[in-house]
Structure formats: structure tokens, C-alpha cells
């Protein structure tokens, strides 16, 4: 194989700490290398053209690019060599940026290490073989997990694009966090007025199948052909016949159920419809509070239900759906602020979360839109907002900024003044993060038009004084301690990964960061893709996001799915395992360990042999390291390829 080596300067990113010309010179000494050069930006158009030209001029059979991580540009360069007529797998990368130039400044060591990495890459490349994709049929249905605003957007965009959509929502209604909001920033328009019609669209769209109060039990298969097992949790109400009339809810004698939709402000009935605009508008029983289910007595709802849909014996049900792509829009949860002793750790009823406050502001909320102190129902005069509760705080493991709290706090301060013109709002903040169209103007309005007092500093203590709360904090701009008598304290609680995000990620085979937010394919270039083909991300499951960003990502994910499904067939990744039937002894150890069931036993001249189903094989290589005689080899990562890399590094 005639090999060409291109050592990239990456501007000064690499060249500053690696002598790329020396690396190129050293690689000229390697076996099979017939051309080596250093280039300024290999990934740029002239850089790529240089590769194409070199392939033609030197009749190259393979190319090594020493530059950034292959996770960045492997695809780019594979297309480049393909443009010059080479098979895309006759290409290797040596990562001399992320793994060399960016992690050390010693030019001698870096140059030496780079030479090693290039040697390794050429030795592997010498053993690379052209690989060819196979085409396979795809199922053009899409699963959207999560029915918040991001999921709704993705589902509607896909459905409008002609795809069949299956939406699975954990809660009894779609709408997510946005449905709980009263108004949205910076326009202060009504949240449910924007979202409501979209929710209705989901319910009415002929292409969308909605499973509310359901969870993902199991995911099998691969891009184009996933098989999803959905658990429909028992609602004790037959939703096919429930009309959502609400009589059951009116008459239910058990009124102590937790009102999840209202964030625990007030209680609800054991049988309930979360809120009037719920989609689907169906009742469900909270079995923990239902006297019939708990004690066998009552049965009022069953007696009164006009359509006879109450079933106290209902069990969880499982359905299987086949789809070709998955959009994950599982959103976020609020940080559990009770860890903060200085804010009372939940002991003071008049310290509430921003989302509880939001429900209080909402006309359809438990207080009918009146701001009342939970302790005594009185209207507050002084309202203190504390920002960064569970955000930007290393001590509680949440060093990141949740992004949207500054904005909603400003909005809530404005709304407070609207609701209670005599009130005075105070905001304790660390910094104001108002990056976004009209955002900074909005916070300024809160301060200037609505006279909200912004105090830059942290609150060190809240304690009760009479029927009020004394909020003590620092004003770091004044360099003084401040104390505010508060009637109500609203904590701008930060966002964290949704409960159960990790378990779902395991089922999806996608990765997540240390906080539980899902990892995108590339932080800049693949914001909605994951590293698992056919699985996309939308909304706050990837990281805290405000509504416009979530909606944007929902649309982006939908665009990705529509793009994926624009072809009738997909090309399989040819980096799959292949069995050498001459060597295979049919012991079946590979079959036993394959996580995907991609290896089957077949008969060849009366002997059992392993056989890899190419479209199912995902290319993990567990079979290859399991087979003692090396009869099954993962293409592009064969034993000999890896051994050649080992030998390139360790030569006695």
C-alpha cells in the first residue's frame, strides 16, 4: 500500500507545541509511506484538495491524517479520500491535537509522541481493507420520548412531514414544565395560550399515537429498525371510554392526593384530571389515596361514571411499537433545594420554589391566580427572590448555570408587581445572565419600570421573625450586610437531569455527562445527534434550556429524522464482524456473548458455524475478543490491526 501522511498544523493549535515538519519527515521513514507533508489546515478546502491531488499524483492507496480527534473529522476525511477514488476505510487518523498538542507544552516530547502516533496509524492502515456498506430497509416511524414543549415540537414537525409518530409521556398529560407556567419571558405572554393549541394538535394529528402515563420499558434493534416495549401504567380508568367529564373528580371523597401538577400546592382528589387543558383529558386514580383500592370501600366514582370506565383491577399493560428513529425529549427536573439549611430546608411554608410560585400566579392554579402566603393565605408585601439555588454551586454538586432562572425571576418580579401593585420585590443574584433576544432589556424593565430591587449577593440565612421571614444576605456591591423582612421567599431553583434519565440512557445506549444530561454527538456540530445512530435529542434533556431553544432543538431533531427517512434504505456501517468459516469450530461462544443477537448458528457442510447478520451487528467486537482462535474478526479493528498498533509502540 502506498501511504500518504498529512500532518496538520491546525493553525497554531498543533504547530505551537509539535514540530509538524519533523513529524512528516520522520514518517517518510515508515514502511509504505511514499509521501508526507505538513499542512496548515488539512480540513479546509485547500487542505482536502491537497490530499486529493496527492492521492492522484502519488497513486496513494491509503492516507493518514495527523490532526485533531477522529471524532471530529474522520468522516470529513473519509469523504475526501472517497472523492479521490479510494475506499473510505483506507484512511486513518492520528490524534495529535486533543491527545498531544493541547495537553502538554514540551515540544520535544510532543513531537516524539506524534511520530509514534503516526507510526501506529500507518501500521494499522497497512492492514486496513476496503469495506463496503450494505443497504437495508427502514421503518419510517419515529418515537418521541417526552411530551414537553420540545417533544411536542419534534412530534408535530415529524407528523407534518408525513411521518408516523409515537409519543410516550411519563405523566398523565403532555405539556411538561411549560404547561405549568403562567407567562413566558420576555414577552410576558400566556404560556398555556401558546402551548395549549400545540397540545391539542398532538391529540388530533392523524399521524401521532400518544401513550400518556406510559414509560419505555425496553429498546431493542438499531437505526431504522428499533423495537420499543412501552409500559402503559395502570390508570384504573378505561381511557378508551373516558370522556373527561370530570364527574368522578367532583364526587371523589378522598381529597388528600398530592397535586403533582400544581407542584404540591394544595391537594387533589384520588381520581383526578391534572388540569382542565390536559391532553389527553382523561381521569386516573392515584391508588395510594383511593379508599376503594386501599381499603375496598367507597367505589363512588365507579357508581357515578356515566361511561362506566372505572376498573379498580387494572394492571400495567405492555405494547410493542416498531420505529426507525427516536427523539429523546425527556426534559429536566428541579433541584431538590431542601439540602440548603440556610433557606430553612423546607421548614418554612412561606419559602417556595419558583415553579410553585408560577402555579400560584396562574389563573388556573390552586389559588386562582392570587398570590397568597401558603402559611396564612395573606397577600405578601415584600417578596424576596433568591437566584442560583442549586445552580453555580459546587458545594451541592451543581456547578453549572441553569440558564433560564435569571429571566424567569425577572418575569416573576414583574408579574408580582402586576398582581400586587403595592408589593416590593427583592432579587438576590450572583450575576445577571440575560443573553438572548430582548432578554437584557427585559431584566432592565424589571428593575427600572417595576422597581424591583436587585441585590448582588448571596443569602446567608432565612429565619422566621413573627409571621414574617428575615432574609439576611450580603450586598457585595455596597460591601454591606442587608436584611429584608419578607412575606414570601421564592427560590429560583435550578434545573437538573430528569429523574430516571440514566436508566433511559442505558436503554437507548447513549451517554450522559456527570450531571445526567445526555451527551450530544458533538458539542458544536452535532447538537441534536447522539453517538447512537437514529437517536436524537431535543430540549433540556441535553442540558438546561429555555423555551425557544427547546423548541428550536425539537425542530432540529425532527429535521434530522426527516433527513434520515428521506431515503428508503440506509447504508449499514461495514465495520462489522466477519466469520472465517475455515477457522470457526462452531462452539457458539460468540453467539452467547453478542449483546445484539447478531450472530446465528448456521450449518456448513454438516458442521456448525457462526454467521454474523450484518445489519444487526453494531461493531462492538465482543465476539472477536471472545473467540479463542480469532475466527470472528471485527472489520477495521481486527486482531492483526490492533496487534500491529501494539507492535508499533512496543518493539521489545
Amino acid at each position, binding site marked *: 500500500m502506498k501511504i500518504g501522511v498529512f500532518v496538520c498544523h491546525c493553525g497554531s493549535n498543533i504547530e505551537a507545541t509539535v514540530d509538524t515538519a519533523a513529524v512528516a519527515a520522520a514518517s517518510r521513514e515508515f514502511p509504505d509511506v511514499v509521501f508526507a507533508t505538513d499542512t496548515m489546515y488539512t480540513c479546509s478546502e485547500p487542505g482536502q484538495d491537497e490530499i486529493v491531488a496527492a492521492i492522484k499524483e502519488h497513486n496513494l492507496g491509503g492516507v493518514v491524517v495527523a490532526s485533531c480527534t477522529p471524532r471530529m473529522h474522520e468522516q470529513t476525511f473519509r469523504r475526501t479520500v472517497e472523492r479521490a477514488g479510494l475506499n473510505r476505510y483506507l484512511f486513518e487518523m492520528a490524534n495529535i491535537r486533543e491527545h498531544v498538542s493541547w495537553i502538554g507544552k514540551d515540544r520535544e516530547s510532543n513531537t516524539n509522541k506524534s511520530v509514534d502516533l503516526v507510526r501506529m496509524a500507518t501500521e494499522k492502515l497497512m492492514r486496513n481493507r476496503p469495506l463496503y456498506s450494505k443497504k437495508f430497509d427502514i421503518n419510517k416511524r419515529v418515537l418521541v420520548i417526552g411530551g414537553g414543549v420540545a417533544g411536542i415540537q419534534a412530534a408535530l414537525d415529524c407528523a407534518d412531514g408525513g411521518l408516523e409518530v409515537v409519543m410516550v409521556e411519563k405523566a398523565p398529560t403532555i405539556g411538561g414544565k411549560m404547561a405549568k407556567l403562567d407567562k413566558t419571558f420576555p414577552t410576558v405572554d400566556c404560556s398555556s395560550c401558546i402551548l395549549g393549541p400545540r397540545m391539542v394538535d398532538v391529540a388530533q394529528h392523524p399521524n401521532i399515537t400518544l401513550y400518556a402515563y406510559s414509560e419505555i420499558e425496553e429498546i431493542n434493534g438499531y437505526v431504522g429498525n428499533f423495537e420499543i416495549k412501552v409500559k402503559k401504567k395502570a390508570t384504573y380508568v378505561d381511557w378508551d371510554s373516558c370522556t373527561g367529564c370530570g364527574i368522578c373528580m367532583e364526587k371523589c371523597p378522598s381529597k388528600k392526593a398530592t397535586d403533582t401538577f400544581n407542584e404540591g400546592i394544595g391537594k387533589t382528589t384520588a381520581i383526578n384530571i391534572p388540569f382542565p387543558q390536559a391532553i389527553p383529558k382523561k381521569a386516573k386514580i392515584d391508588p395510594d389515596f383511593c379508599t376503594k383500592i386501599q381499603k375496598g370501600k367507597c367505589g363512588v366514582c365507579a357508581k357515578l361514571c356515566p361511561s362506566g370506565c372505572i376498573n379498580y383491577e387494572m394492571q400495567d399493560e405492555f405494547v410493542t411499537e416498531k420505529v426507525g428513529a427516536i427523539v429523546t425529549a425527556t426534559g429536566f427536573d428541579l433541584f431538590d433545594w431542601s439540602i440548603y439549611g440556610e433557606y430553612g430546608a423546607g421548614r418554612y411554608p412561606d419559602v417556595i420554589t419558583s415553579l410553585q410560585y408560577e402555579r400560584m400566579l396562574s389563573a388556573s392554579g390552586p389559588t386562582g391566580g392570587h398570590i397568597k402566603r401558603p402559611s396564612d393565605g395573606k397577600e405578601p408585601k415584600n417578596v424576596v427572590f433568591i437566584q442560583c439555588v442549586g445552580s453555580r454551586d459546587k458545594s451541592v454538586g451543581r456547578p453549572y448555570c441553569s440558564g433560564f432562572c435569571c429571566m424567569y425571576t425577572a418575569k416573576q418580579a414583574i408579574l408580582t408587581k402586576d398582581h400586587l401593585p403595592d408589593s416590593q420585590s427583592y432579587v438576590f443574584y450572583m450575576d445577571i445572565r440575560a443573553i438572548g433576544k430582548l432578554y437584557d432589556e427585559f431584566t432592565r424593565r424589571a428593575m427600572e419600570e417595576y422597581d424591583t430591587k436587585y441585590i448582588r449577593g448571596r443569602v446567608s440565612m432565612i429565619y422566621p421573625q413573627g409571621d414574617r421571614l428575615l432574609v439576611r444576605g450580603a450586598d457585595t456591591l455596597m460591601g454591606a450586610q442587608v436584611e429584608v423582612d419578607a412575606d414570601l421567599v421564592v427560590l429560583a431553583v435550578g434545573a437538573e437531569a430528569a429523574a430516571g434519565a440514566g436508566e433511559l440512557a442505558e436503554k437507548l445506549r447513549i451517554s450522559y455527562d456527570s450531571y445526567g444530561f445526555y451527551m450530544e454527538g458533538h458539542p458544536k456540530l452535532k447538537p441534536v445527534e447522539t453517538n447512537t445512530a437514529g437517536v436524537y435529542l431535543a430540549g433540556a434533556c441535553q442540558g438546561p434550556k429555555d423555551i425557544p431553544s427547546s423548541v428550536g432543538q425539537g425542530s432540529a431533531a425532527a429535521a434530522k429524522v426527516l433527513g434520515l427517512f428521506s431515503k428508503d434504505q440506509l447504508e449499514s456501517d461495514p465495520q462489522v464482524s466477519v466469520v472465517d468459516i475455515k477457522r470457526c469450530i462452531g*462452539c457458539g461462544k460468540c453467539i*452467547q456473548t453478542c449483546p445484539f443477537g447478531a450472530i446465528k448458528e448456521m450449518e456448513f457442510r454438516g458442521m456448525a458455524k457462526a454467521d454474523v447478520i450484518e445489519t444487526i451487528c453494531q461493531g462492538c467486537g465482543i465476539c472477536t475478543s471472545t473467540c479463542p*482462535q480469532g475466527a470472528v474478526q471485527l472489520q477495521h479493528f*481486527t486482531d492483526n490491526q490492533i*496487534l500491529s498498533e501494539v507492535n508499533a509502540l512496543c518493539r521489545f
Partner: protein
Amino acid sequence: MKFQEELKDSIRKALPDLDVVLGWCGSFDPLHATPHFIRREEDIDKLEISPLSVHNLATYLPGLRGKKVGIVVKGCDSRSVVELLQENLINREDITIFGFPCTGVVDQAKIKKALGHAGNVRTCDISDSAIVIQTEDKAHSLTLTQMLADKCRTCRYPDAIISDYFVGDKIGEPAPLETDYAALEAFESLSVPERFGYWLKELDRCIRCYACRSACPLCVCRDHCAAESRDPHWLSQENNVRDKVMFQVIHAYHMAGRCTECGECQRACPVDIPVLMLKQKMNREIRDIFQYEAGVDPEATPPLLSFNMEEENITEKEW
């Protein structure tokens, strides 16, 4: 042996339905036995069971797949049969197993050492407690228990674990003469360079005949062993101690969780390299981590072909 005639009767009964029955018979001198392939009625008479019946005949089973095979097994041999069944390398319905209560087999290396030389054995009489060997000039009386193979001195499975015919009275669980892995533990107490040097020195004389592998009942790759392959190319063909050590590591690792410590690898070695110790090391670690013993349960899955989400006995490094 007391039950030898009973065994012959059982074989005589079963033979019409079998292509071959594997047993042992006398060999080139009275001190040795050799595997005996009983195909015809008249072959049965040559069958001899004694402490010289050292060979693990299970080694032949995968190669006889498709045939109806009878096999006489010691307790340890039966564990290899179990392991082969477990790995689906032989079919239970094709195998007829003849078990007997085994009181141990000799280690020819120990006898050779005791005699000084074993090239001229004229007669060999084995009683319950002694082996009396007549060479051309001298009669040697050796204590049987001292001549037993190490595996017999620690044996916990003298009776076949599975059998279709069992002749004689089962021994049950005997009190081992020695504790497991004593020699291994002694070796492990040596210094790092001593251990490193030991294998270089011992394996230097390896002639790469691969008898260790060929005699192993679980080395089922046979003609496709990675040792002699260029793809994958793990080893060179050079007479190189590095490759010799590497091969033993390959063998030991491929046996991990499968090896029943029958000792055939070491017994087969024509230059007496103590290669079993490497497998014992693997096995002891497997036992410690997974509480697993190979070849006792045909339904079990070897530990390296399975996993638990939480591994109780694996503590990962903290950085």
C-alpha cells in the same frame, strides 16, 4: 481393580449400540498404560483400569462428534465431559459414560524421580498402598499415595460427576491429602524478578510441540489454534522464549473459567515444564471472584462468558 470385570460387562452390554468405547490398556512397558479404543467385543478383554490410567480420554470426544461414543471416566475426567457438554461441544445423547470410583492415578514424573530412571521397567505391581517396580537390577517399593498425581492428592471428585453406568461403590467426598494451591501460594511468595525469571528459565526448553494444547480436553480449537496462525498473528515461529511464555498465557487465559485442572497439559509436556501452575492461578482467581468451579454443572455458564451488573468481588481502582 475389583470392579474391572463389572466394568467390562457393562461395556459388553453397551457396545452393540456404540461405535467405540474409550478406555485404557497396557502400553510399551508395565509402568505405562495407553488409551484403548474398544471397537469390537474382543477388544474388551484388554481393558485395564489402574492407577496407571492417567490419560483424560475426554480429550478425544470433540473429535468423535457425530459418533456414538462410550467413555470410561475418572472423577476428574468426568468434569471435562461436563465442561464439554456445558459448552455444547459434544452431544449428551451420543455419549455413554462409564464411571468408577477412582482412588487416584500416578504421576510418572514422581516415579521417574523416585527410581532415578524408569527406562527399564520389567514388572509393576500395584496394590492399594504400594507400587512395586522391578527394574533389571532392583525392586523398588514405592508408597502409592506419594506417587499420586498432585490433582489426586487434592481431589474432591473421585466419582464421576455424571455417568450412565457406574461400577463399584462410590467414594463420596474424600479428605484431600493436601490443600489446594499450596505450591502456587509458595510460588507467589517469591519476588517479582524471581517469578519473571522462573518462567523464562522453565519455558526456555519448550520445543513448541504444543502437546500441552493437544492433550487439553478443552483446547477445542485444535487445528485452528492462534499459536500457529498468521491471521491473527499473535506469535512468531521463532524459537523465542517470549513467544513461548506468551503462548502459555494465551492457553491459560483461554482456559480461564473452563479449566478443570486435569493436568494433561503438564503431563503431556515432553520436557516436563510445569505449565499447569498458570492455569491454577487463573482458576484460583476465578474461584475467588466468582465462586465458580468449572466442570461440575452442565447447566452453568463460564464466568467470562457472562456478567453481573454489580460485581460483588471486583473492587475498582479509585483515582
